């Protein structure tokens, strides 16, 4: 009987999770957002831990040129925001929020780098709908998803997880959130992680 109750509770939990897939959608993107439906929350194996060195990379930016992680060494803390794909519901309503809180990043001497596996033309069209972004948007398109893979956040279908990495000025990972792909991470969790940077590791 106990097993039966356990199974019943599991069933309830699954159904609640199905019903919980909700997100806001900005009219800024009109009818152009593709809805992939509810996806497996996580589909990769993280191979990094807090306290380890963050893998360096160099990726092309939508605004031109290339950006590397190591260029910020000893100068800035870095937040990496991986989002799965351009023109999808939750991703389209994540970076525009970061776009109005530059001061929160500045307070903690941090820069934000947005990364997806989309190519530059796609990212260009998509991010233009968000207004002028103050942070670089980088394309991990080719070799496909190589940086996402090096961080252990490349999913089996070739898109990345929805993940946040906070890296200090020494290049050390201080916070990792590989989030449920169907949900937007709360801003306060990231702000708390930035506040933690001010403390010694």
């Amino acid at each position, binding site marked *: 009987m106990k097993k039966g109750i356990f199974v019943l509770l599991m069933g309830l939990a699954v*159904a*609640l999770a199905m019903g919980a897939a*909700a997100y806001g959608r900005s009219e800024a993107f009109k009818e152009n957002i593709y809805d992939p439906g509810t996806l497996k929350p996580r589909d990769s194996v993280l191979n990094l831990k807090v306290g380890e060195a963050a893998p360096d990379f160099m990726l092309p930016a939508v605004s031109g040129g290339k950006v590397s992680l190591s260029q910020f060494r000893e100068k800035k803390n870095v937040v990496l925001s991986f989002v799965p794909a351009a023109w999808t519901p939750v991703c389209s309503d994540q970076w525009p929020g970061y776009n109005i809180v530059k001061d929160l990043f500045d307070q903690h001497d941090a820069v934000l780098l947005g990364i997806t596996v989309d190519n530059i033309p796609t990212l260009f069209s998509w991010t233009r709908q968000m207004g002028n972004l103050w942070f670089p948007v980088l394309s991990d398109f080719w070799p496909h998803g190589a940086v996402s893979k090096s961080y252990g956040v490349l999913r089996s279908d070739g898109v990345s997880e929805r993940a946040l990495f906070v890296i200090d000025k020494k290049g050390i990972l201080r916070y990792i959130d590989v989030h449920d792909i169907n949900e*937007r991470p709360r801003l306060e969790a990231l702000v708390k992680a930035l506040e933690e940077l001010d403390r010694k590791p």
Partner: protein
Amino acid sequence: MKRLVFFALGSWLCFVNVHSKAMAEGPPKTGESLPSITLPIPEVAAERQYLGLSETKTFKISEIKSRVVIIEIFSMYCPYCQREAPVVNSLYRKIAANPLWKDHIKVIGIGAGNSPFEVDIFKKKYDIPFPLFPDMDFIVHKAFGDVRTPYFIAVQLEENGVVRVIFSELGGLGEVDAFLNLILKRAGINQGVEK
């Protein structure tokens, strides 16, 4: 086998419950009554006073002391809502500055999927003078038919307690005076401007 049946039954019961109660067919339509929603009482006394609410924990739209309430469904993550914020502020200020209107039309915002922290960020960033409420778990958003943002609903509070929708549209307000005149006309409020 029994376990499977149990599992399926549990899932189905819960799914039906979540969807039949919370999911609306679509946005509230003009002429219909607004789905009943519950919001937390504002912490700021001036905002409670603006809405004519006492210090309880929660309230319903019908308890606001006003003839008309304009509700904006927004998100701090929505670029359109960010661009629209000064327009909505201007609407609020026009109403607040007119003695014929200020006691009869109130403006509130509901942050779809936004936490109190996120709503507060939006409020400070755009210096929003009217009350904003978090809708962290999309409960209001679902009750209003999963609308895209920004979405504006104006309701008339009738004496019999019915909250009647008099405006319900997706997108920006457009020209503030034209929008305001439409609401005044539909609510039967004096459109004259007193100095």
